[in-house]
C-alpha cells in the first residue's frame, strides 16, 4: 500500500461566530443553505481525500467553492474547524506554532495566485527566500536559488526586481522560490489563473515537464476545467464546500458523479482528454492488417482523427506490437459527445456538443 503524502479526514472549515453550532448541524446532515442562516460561512464541508506521493492532485471548483480555504488548511495557514490533515506522520491541526513553521519550512512550499513576491528584493533574493528562512548560509543559498531559477528558464534575470518582469516571468520566480525550498510537497493556489491564456499554457507545459523530472507531490487549485484536465493525475471536483467527485480526468468525463459535474464537463475539449484506450472496442489480439492505421493506447483522441481520416479501415490500437482494440470512425465521433463518452450507460437525450 502506498502511504499518502497528504491525507485529510472529515475536514471542516466554518467561518463565523457560531461555527461550532453550524458544524454540529452539518455533521447531522443539514444542508449548507440551512446553516448559512446562522450567519456563518461553511467554506469546506467534510473533505476526506488522499494525495499520493508524486501525483498532481488538482482541486477544481468555481470561486466560492472553498478550494482556496482547503489548500490553506493543508499547511495550517488556516486552522481547521474540525477534522484532520496528516502530512507525513504529523497531524497539522495538533502542531504548535514552532512545529507548524518547521513543517512549512521543510515539507511543503507554496505558489500564489498573485505571485506574492517581495517587491523590494531581487529575483535571486526572492528565490532564495525559503532557504534564508531555513538559515542556509548565504553563498549556498545563492547557488541553490540560481539553480532553481535556471530550472524555470530565468537565468540572467537574477538581479532584476519583480516589478521589472512580466506576469509570466514573475510567476516563474514564484515557482523557482517553491522549487528552491526543495520540499516534497508543493501547494499551488490558482498559480496560473492571473496569467493570459498563451502564457498560462506555457506555464502548464513547463510545470508538466518539471514534474517529469522532479516527481513532486503537487496540490494544484484551479477554477479552469481545461487546466485541471491537462495537469491533474486526479481531480477533486468541489462545489459549495463539498468534494463531489475525485477521479482521473477521463473518469470524470466518462462518468460524472452528478448533473452538476456533467454540466460542468460539457465544454471540455474531450479530444484532448480522452485516450484511444477508453473509446476502442477491445480486440482479441492479432496484428493490424496491411495499411491499417495504428496508434498507441495512450494517444489523445485529437491525434487519432488524422489516422482515422487516412484510411477506410478502423484505427488499430497497438500496445507493444499487439493489437488490443480498434476504433471505428463512429465511436470516435460518439466519444465527442457527453452521452457517447459514457458508453451509452446514460440515456441518450442530452444535446450533442460540437466535437
Amino acid at each position: 500500500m502506498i502511504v499518502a503524502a497528504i491525507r485529510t479526514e472529515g475536514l471542516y472549515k466554518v467561518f463565523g461566530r457560531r461555527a461550532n453550532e453550524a458544524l454540529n448541524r452539518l455533521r447531522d446532515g443539514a444542508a449548507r443553505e440551512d446553516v448559512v442562516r446562522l450567519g456563518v460561512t461553511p467554506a469546506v464541508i467534510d473533505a476526506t481525500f488522499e494525495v499520493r506521493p508524486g501525483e498532481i492532485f488538482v482541486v477544481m471548483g468555481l470561486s466560492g467553492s472553498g478550494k482556496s480555504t482547503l489548500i490553506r488548511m493543508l499547511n495550517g495557514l488556516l486552522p481547521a474547524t474540525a477534522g484532520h490533515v496528516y502530512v507525513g506522520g504529523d497531524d497539522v491541526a495538533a502542531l504548535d506554532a514552532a512545529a507548524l513553521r518547521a513543517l512549512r519550512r521543510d515539507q511543503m512550499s507554496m505558489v500564489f495566485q498573485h505571485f506574492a513576491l517581495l517587491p523590494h528584493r531581487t529575483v535571486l533574493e526572492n528565490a532564495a527566500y525559503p532557504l534564508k528562512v531555513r538559515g542556509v548560509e548565504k553563498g549556498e543559498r545563492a547557488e541553490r536559488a540560481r539553480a532553481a531559477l535556471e530550472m524555470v528558464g530565468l537565468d540572467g534575470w537574477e538581479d532584476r526586481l519583480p516589478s521589472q518582469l512580466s506576469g509570466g516571468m514573475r510567476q516563474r520566480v514564484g515557482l523557482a522560490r517553491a522549487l528552491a525550498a526543495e520540499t516534497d510537497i508543493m501547494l499551488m493556489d490558482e498559480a496560473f489563473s492571473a496569467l493570459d491564456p498563451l502564457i498560462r499554457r506555457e506555464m502548464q507545459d513547463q510545470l508538466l515537464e518539471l514534474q517529469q523530472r522532479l516527481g513532486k507531490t503537487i496540490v494544484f487549485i484551479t477554477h479552469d476545467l481545461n487546466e485541471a484536465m491537462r495537469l491533474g493525475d486526479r481531480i477533486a471536483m468541489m462545489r459549495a464546500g463539498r468534494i463531489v467527485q475525485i477521479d482521473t480526468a477521463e473518469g470524470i468525463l466518462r462518468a460524472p458523479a452528478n448533473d452538476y459535474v456533467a454540466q460542468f464537463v460539457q465544454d471540455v475539449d474531450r479530444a484532448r482528454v480522452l485516450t484511444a484506450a477508453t473509446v476502442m472496442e477491445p480486440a482479441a489480439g492479432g496484428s493490424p492488417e496491411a495499411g491499417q492505421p495504428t496508434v498507441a493506447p495512450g494517444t489523445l483522441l485529437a491525434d487519432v482523427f488524422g489516422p482515422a481520416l487516412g484510411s477506410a479501415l478502423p484505427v488499430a490500437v497497438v500496445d507493444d506490437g499487439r493489437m488490443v482494440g480498434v476504433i471505428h470512425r463512429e465511436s470516435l465521433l460518439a466519444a465527442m459527445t457527453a452521452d457517447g463518452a459514457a458508453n451509452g450507460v446514460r440515456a441518450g437525450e442530452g444535446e450533442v456538443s460540437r466535437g
Partner: protein
Amino acid sequence: MAEWRIPLGDWVDEFVAWLLDTFQPVFDVLRDFLRWSFDELADLLVLPPSWAMVALLGALAWLARGWRLGVGGAASLALIVLIDQWENAMQTLALVIITVLVAVILAIPIGILAARSRLVSNIVRPVLDFMQTMPPLVYLIPGVVLIGVGPQAGMVATVVFAMPPGIRLTELGIRQVDAEVVEAGHAFGSTPRSILRDIQLPLALQTIMAGVNQVIMLSLSMVVLAGFVGAPGLGQQVISSISQLDVGLGVEAGLSVVILAIYLDRVTAALGSRSAVARLEKVA
C-alpha cells in the same frame, strides 16, 4: 442649572495632585533628563559658527535630495542668520529634534502593536482622537504642574501632541502591506518577527516616513506654543512680540519658524522617498 455640576475639574486636580505625590521621583528624573538633553543639544548646535552650520545643513539637504534643495535650503537658513534669529532657531531645532526622537521611539512600537492586534487598535484609536483634538495649549498646564516651568514642560506637551500621526501612519503602513506577501512569509515558515523585519516594515517604510514627517511638523508648531511656559527659542520671541505688540519681531521670528519648517519637511520627505518601495516605483 448652575447649582449642581459634575466636578470634573476638581477630580482632575485631585488626580494630578495624587500623581505628583506618588510619582514625584519619576517626574524628577524625566525633568532632569529632558532639561539636560535640551541644554546639551542646544549648546552643541550653536557651538560652530552660524555660517558653518548653514553650510552643513545645506550639505545635508544636498545629500538627501540634490543640489537644488541644498542650495535653496542653505539660502533660506542664511536668511535666519541675517535677521539675527539663528541662536533662537537652533534652540527651537534642539527642542524639535529631542521631542521628535522621543515621539517616534514611542509611536512606532505602538503603531506596530496596533497593526497586529484589533484590540490594541480599538483602544489606541479613541486615545489618539483625544490627543489630537484637545486644544494643544491644554497640555501645557499639566506639563508645568508635573515637571515645572521651562523647556521640559513644553517638550512633554509637544511629544503628546505630535505622536498621533506617527502611530496612525505606522499602523496604516503595516496594514497596507499586501496580505498575500505576508502570507507567503508564513507559508515558507518565517517567524512573525522576521516577517515584521523582512517584509512588513520595509514595505511600510514610506508610509511610516510620511508619519515621521507629520510628527516633525506638529512638533515644530507645538514647540513655538511651548514658549508660553518658558521654552526658549523662536517661540519665546513670538510670545514677547505679542506682549510688546512688536510686529517687526513677530514677523522675523515667524518667518524663521516657517523656514525651519520647510527645510525639515523637504529633507525628511526626501529621506522617505529613498525607502525601498519608493526606489522600486522609480524603476518600474
